[in-house]
């Protein structure tokens, strides 16, 4: 008998019959060929979140983003007109990477009046126009207006900057983000500008790590040692059941109970958490800002009193966590090969006014890393054994519904791409 009501079909999974309930294959996560197709079918043609508007505080602010999965690097810049644009990070002369700092593969950011290529000094305005060519008269009929930076589609949603590398994309960002894009609008993201960002190299397929964060079935077990012994025993006896799951096409969400704000039993809480009044779920007291008393409709969809956190999975690789105490987290997974990726975990809080508030956030940020290290290592172990193909079918339970949706969506994108672009080679005897 589940603790929280499930849909009429008897399970969350069966509420979405296209998912099926049978065991799944993870071939899509261990195949170099499948990854090469994903690069074209997914990363080169969907909306990807690359940053937030606060990273571009002034006209002339810029940051670069390495998109290995899409085979390119981008410069995202706020022009003199205040508009945010995105360009392939390449000089139009002989293809040098335009914006980089000592190590070309590393991301960089700053403020500038124009971009100057280190190689031959070509200069570009922050709006993308080519404005200066060294020894221009040496060129043959060079029309500078034809050699501006190569732009890509860029749009913002609630301050999150997305790019789409498909020049033929006609789906606006807001439409792509669907029900959750609408249903999260109005959350005070813009008030949470205190940022703590982590980065890790993970030896696992990007989707397998998304999986680890898209279910909490593992939480009472893998992270058992994180809680006091009594609390751990209680949690693993109880198990994990979500308050709700929802899917919207490629995207999905899970709504969960949890957190201590403040805890009912101080004995269940670690000493440092007791003094700082914070923990994994964040500070025990909410920040005093507008927008938290009335949450937007996608948050806590079951309207449960015990609500603690919602996780939104925006396909392909952007996760947004809204925490009840009034802060949020994002996860990004940037593939670098079929079995490696860069994971970014970023915490956003309302800026602290006192040292106590700052220390509450420090505990949340440090706790996050303690948990994430356990996840990352486990996934590397998982990847190696999946690649053995000793076992090729894996049962998923109802709490793992978001995993079914992610892998199905990835495979569907690849299949759609293949059917559109793969042309059979016909060898004909006709002359």
């Amino acid at each position, binding site marked *: 008998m589940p603790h929280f009501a499930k849909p009429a079909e008897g399970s969350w999974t069966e509420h979405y019959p296209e998912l099926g309930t049978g065991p799944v294959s993870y071939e899509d996560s261990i195949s170099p060929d499948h990854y090469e197709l994903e690069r074209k079918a997914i990363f080169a043609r969907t909306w990807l979140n690359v940053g937030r508007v606060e990273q571009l505080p002034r006209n002339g602010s810029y940051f670069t983003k390495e998109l290995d999965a899409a085979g390119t690097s981008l410069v995202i810049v706020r022009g003199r007109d205040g508009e945010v644009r995105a360009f392939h990070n390449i000089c139009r002369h002989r293809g040098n990477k335009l914006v980089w700092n000592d190590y070309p593969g590393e991301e960089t950011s700053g403020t500038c009046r124009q971009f100057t290529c280190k190689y031959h000094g070509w200069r570009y305005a922050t709006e993308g126009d080519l404005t200066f060519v060294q020894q221009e008269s040496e060129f043959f009929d060079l029309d500078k207006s034809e050699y501006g930076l190569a732009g890509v589609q860029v749009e913002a949603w609630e301050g999150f900057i997305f790019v789409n590398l498909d020049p033929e994309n006609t789906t606006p960002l807001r439409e792509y983000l669907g029900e959750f894009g609408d249903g999260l609008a109005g959350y005070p993201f813009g008030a949470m500008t205190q*940022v*703590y960002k982590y980065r890790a190299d993970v030896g696992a397929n990007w989707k397998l790590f998304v999986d680890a964060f898209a279910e909490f079935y593992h939480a009472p077990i893998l992270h058992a*040692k994180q809680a006091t012994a009594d609390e751990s025993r209680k949690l693993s006896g109880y198990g994990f059941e979500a308050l709700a799951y929802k899917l919207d096409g490629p995207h999905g969400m899970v709504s969960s109970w949890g957190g201590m704000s403040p805890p009912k039993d101080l004995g269940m809480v670690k000493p440092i958490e007791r003094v700082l009044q914070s923990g994994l779920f964040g500070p025990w007291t909410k920040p005093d800002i507008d927008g938290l008393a009335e949450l937007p409709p996608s948050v806590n969809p079951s309207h449960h009193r015990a609500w603690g956190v919602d996780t939104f999975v925006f396909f392909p690789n952007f996760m947004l966590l809204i925490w009840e105490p009034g802060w949020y987290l994002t996860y990004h997974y940037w593939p670098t090969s079929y079995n490696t990726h860069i994971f970014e975990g970023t915490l956003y809080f309302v800026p602290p006014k006192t040292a106590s508030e700052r220390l509450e956030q*420090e*505990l949340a940020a*440090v706790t996050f890393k303690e948990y994430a290290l356990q996840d*990352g*290592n486990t996934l590397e172990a998982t990847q190696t054994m999946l690649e053995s193909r000793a076992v090729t079918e894996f049962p998923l339970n109802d709490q793992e519904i978001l995993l079914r949706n992610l892998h199905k969506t990835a495979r569907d994108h690849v299949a759609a791409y293949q059917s559109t672009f793969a042309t059979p080679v016909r060898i004909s005897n006709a002359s």
Partner: protein
Amino acid sequence: MTTLPTGFTDLEPFADWALATEAERYAKRLASSMEELEAFYDAAFPRLADAMAYLDGLDLHALPEEATALLWLCYSLVNVSFPVEVWRQPRVPDSGAASMDMLVEPAV
């Protein structure tokens, strides 16, 4: 010459934990023995509430040098609390060779 504010001279022996970045604090944690971590925690944890009260009386964005050092020491205490309160070892159990770097941290 002291690093920490007067009133916290009992923590001077641990002033080398007053480190500005997460990378430095985490590296020192991993390089320390459990005895060293416990000695720091046992001295600093009982003073955490006092440190918070002292620092809360100052402007967080205009802290004098010795107050900043005390705040950094508190960040280290948060980090060290995990090995001492939970893990009984410096590294996160089941973390193997996994590592995670802090790419962006607040100015304060």
